[in-house]
């Protein structure tokens, strides 16, 4: 039976690596599945270090669902840091699970979560460390199946020759469907069944894309077109959507790590999807429609989660938590809950400035005052109309004033540069906003400071900006320098920026096609792993790999597309009509905003209509706040989630 452990071989080396606790497992809530040869064994893998991967809620949800199944078992793996990787390669220790330290190649499926393009070479590295051939054509019956999910799989083409199957959309249901198909294959007596038969069966599942079942050709302009290899293979793969979030109260046993990780707190997802309609935001487009949890279920999950984990901080997560209709009740009751053991603080990530007021400032982070981040995204109202992030300058100043008046001394503002139609006036508007925020802060404290964090915009598939040619490396660098010079004039403003070189690579991969598979392998084999880490990122590796493959990065990243051009993800369906996205792109260029459809008539984006479902929202009236809709003669609404008055500390 295949159920070994590499712990004995690994243990002696852990004294000589950094942060060895990330390789030991032992998280509270973790499981040691009893290995059963007939089970479908999944290795859920995050292709970055443990500290970044452990908190990933998607993997934790699947971990629980799979381990509850009578025919599946699941363990977890993370990319070993470079020091341990060297030892593993020298000593022939394969990639392993942290749960039982089982070698990766003993699993039936190695499934990756892909949340950033820059981890693609780490995925390849993990396969190689597992002793699994990195090209799907080289794998045979005994090799694990390689799967992937997460936001990046809405254009999986750069990995099409490496990964066997991709799962699009919500994973809660499809993971069991995939398990069933593999289980039947495993337990089948029919010896004529091949790996290819299995893949063909998988490709028939809704939401599952098996790239080897599609043949790629390139038209005269160089654009990729895919065709199914036979009639049984679907031409269009629709994403999976779970209709009722309430039926999936996962993770029920969120993992509590022994060692420190990012987002080290209880996380409770209050809703999925977002219809604010920011045109640059892929997450907001591909996760529609909005599906809320009832505030009662959220309260239960918070209460039992805190009790079970021992955390003293809970984050209510979503793409825009201030929009959650039960926010007031949940925040109030959580902080005042007599069953809390000690103080509990609540953090609300993704807060929109138009809903952040003095009362929220006073109530959140009540035990500890940590960072506060607002994301105006662009420096001028014109630019924000283009991207449909319709917050007014006074909304931002109101939020900033609330925070400073409640004792905060510093905050972070997040912006994008390189947006469509952006002028230098828009770019410099970022510095102007920041300077005004510092001036407001100075009324409350002389130590007031604002950190401006700018990222280069990368156009993403299934957004209105998917046709936009990304700003060049030179242009983004020029804009960063422009800002550097400008913020120097104001004391109290600090500037941080994402490396434009990394933005270029993200742009190449974000809208790339199958030909990039060889580029990825080439970068990986020249040592290009951990590209998300600035100390390891190396643009030269990418440029020379592109050259070697005879591909122009300018063509992939910088070129504007038109409506007629086939896109590498045209065979995938994120639920959005292409003509809706195109109309949005035209409206963006005309600087016309679009309202949030939760409280205004449907404009038929496709997300609900295609599935016969509706936004599940507890409140029928929109929250008050400047951004509601477009600020173009819209009703301001009546329900006011920001009127929170919680100051008592639970002890």
């Amino acid at each position, binding site marked *: 039976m295949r159920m070994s452990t590499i*712990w004995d071989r690994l243990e*002696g080396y*852990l*004294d000589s690596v950094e*942060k*060895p*606790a990330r*390789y*030991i*497992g*032992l998280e*509270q809530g973790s499981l040691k599945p009893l290995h059963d040869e007939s089970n479908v064994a999944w290795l859920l893998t995050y292709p970055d270090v443990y500290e970044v991967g452990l908190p990933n809620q998607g993997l934790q949800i699947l971990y629980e669902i799979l381990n509850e199944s009578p025919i599946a078992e699941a363990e977890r793996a993370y990319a070993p840091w470079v020091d341990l990787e060297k030892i593993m390669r020298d000593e022939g220790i394969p990639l392993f699970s942290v749960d039982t330290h089982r070698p990766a190649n003993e699993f039936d499926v190695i499934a990756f979560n892909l949340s950033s393009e820059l981890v693609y070479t780490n995925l390849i590295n993990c396969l190689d460390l597992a002793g699994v051939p990195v090209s799907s054509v080289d794998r045979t019956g005994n090799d694990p199946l390689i799967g992937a999910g997460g936001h990046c799989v809405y254009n999986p083409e750069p990995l099409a020759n490496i990964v066997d199957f991709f799962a699009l959309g919500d994973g809660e249901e499809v993971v069991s469907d995939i398990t069933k198909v593999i289980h039947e294959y495993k337990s089948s007596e029919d010896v004529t069944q091949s790996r290819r038969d299995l893949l063909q069966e998988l490709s028939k599942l809704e939401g599952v894309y098996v790239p080897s079942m599609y043949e790629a050709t390139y038209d005269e302009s160089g654009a990729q077109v895919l065709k199914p290899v036979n009639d049984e293979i679907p031409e269009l793969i629709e994403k999976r959507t779970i209709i009722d979030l309430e039926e999936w109260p996962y993770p029920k046993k969120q993992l*509590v790590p*022994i*060692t*420190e990780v990012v987002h080290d707190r209880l996380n409770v997802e209050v809703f999925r999807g977002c219809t604010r309609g920011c045109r640059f935001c892929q997450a907001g487009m591909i996760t529609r429609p909005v599906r809320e949890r009832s505030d009662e279920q959220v309260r239960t999950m918070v209460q039992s989660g*805190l*009790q*079970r*984990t*021992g*955390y*003293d901080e809970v984050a209510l997560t979503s793409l825009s938590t201030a929009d959650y209709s039960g926010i007031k009740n949940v925040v109030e009751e959580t902080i005042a809950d007599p069953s809390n*053991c*000690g*103080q509990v603080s609540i953090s609300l990530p993704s807060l929109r400035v138009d809903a952040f007021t003095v009362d929220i400032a006073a109530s959140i982070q009540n*035990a*500890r*005052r940590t960072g506060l981040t607002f994301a105006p995204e662009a420096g001028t109202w014109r630019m924000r109309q283009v991207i449909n992030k319709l917050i007014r300058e006074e909304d931002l100043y109101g939020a900033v004033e609330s925070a400073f008046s409640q004792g905060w001394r510093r905050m972070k503002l997040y912006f994008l540069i390189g947006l469509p139609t952006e002028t230098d006036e828009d770019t410099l508007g970022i510095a102007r906003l920041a300077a005004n925020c510092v001036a407001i802060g100075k009324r409350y404290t002389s130590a007031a400071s604002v950190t401006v964090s700018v990222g280069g915009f990368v156009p993403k598939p299934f957004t209105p900006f998917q046709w936009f040619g990304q700003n060049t490396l030179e242009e983004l660098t020029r804009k960063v320098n422009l800002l550097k010079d400008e913020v120097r004039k104001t004391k109290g403003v600090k500037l941080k920026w994402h490396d434009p070189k990394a933005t270029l690579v993200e742009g190449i991969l974000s809208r790339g096609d199958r030909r990039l598979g060889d580029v990825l392998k080439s970068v990986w084999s020249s040592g290009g792993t951990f590209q998300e880490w600035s100390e390891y990122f190396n643009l030269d590796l990418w440029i020379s790999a592109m050259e070697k493959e005879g591909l122009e990065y300018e063509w992939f990243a910088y070129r504007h597309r038109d409506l007629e051009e086939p896109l590498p993800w045209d065979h995938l369906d994120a639920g959005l009509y292409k003509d809706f996205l195109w109309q949005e792109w035209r409206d963006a260029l005309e600087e016309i905003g679009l309202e949030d459809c939760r409280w205004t008539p449907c404009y038929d984006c496709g997300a609900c209509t295609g599935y016969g479902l509706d936004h599940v929202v507890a409140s029928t009236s929109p929250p008050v706040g400047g951004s509601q809709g477009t600020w173009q003669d819209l009703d301001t609404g009546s329900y006011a989630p920001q009127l929170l008055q919680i100051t008592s500390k639970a*002890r």
Partner: protein
Amino acid sequence: MILRLQTTKVGKIRFASHRDIAKVWERSLRRAEIPLVYSEGFSPRPKISFGLALPTGAESECEYLDFHLDDQKYETSNISSIPQVLTKVLPEGITITGMVKMPKKYVSLQQSVTSTTWGIEVKENTKDVQKWKEIVLTSDELIIKRTRKGKQVVDDIRPYIRAIGVEEDVSKTTIKAELKTQPRSLRPSEFLVAAKPNLTMVRLRRLKQFIDTGDSQIGPLDLGDSLDSDLELCSS
């Protein structure tokens, strides 16, 4: 009420750092619904204090911590079962092996512990280690360079070495050494370079912690009053 716990740290959990373990305790106490007294001030923290840090990777049979129970919020009759309640929520490898109630006035663990006994498994064979031991014990002074608070200092570590024993078990050679922790601790890694040829550590385990009272050596639990716990108190 201040309670002092004695615990183990064995197995995989040995790779968790002192800082990691501090967080584990905070969470475990909350999970066990044991209310703590909080510090005053801008950023209140629960009052827990830990003994001498154990190097990451080392195991231990005798770790200690003191915590300030908020006894107004806790049923007195439940206090004696705290070790059982806590052990259930602690990670594998950490087991509570003793608990006492500390007097109102007491000296902190870090200040009161005077020496610890270590089991140090080394690579070298028993014969060579015996020779090494003789050199160490017969030397009047042992000067080594070591780093303290980021600075290189030259120290005579001979006064820190109270006793050395050598044990052989199958093919493993283990040194048992009692090393002093005051005025500053002698680390096992520093001890192994006390004489040439230097020894190479394979595995480390803290076996005992002692408090020297002048006329006798006692354990940290001996300073408190035992509660009616079902646990056998193995403080010696």
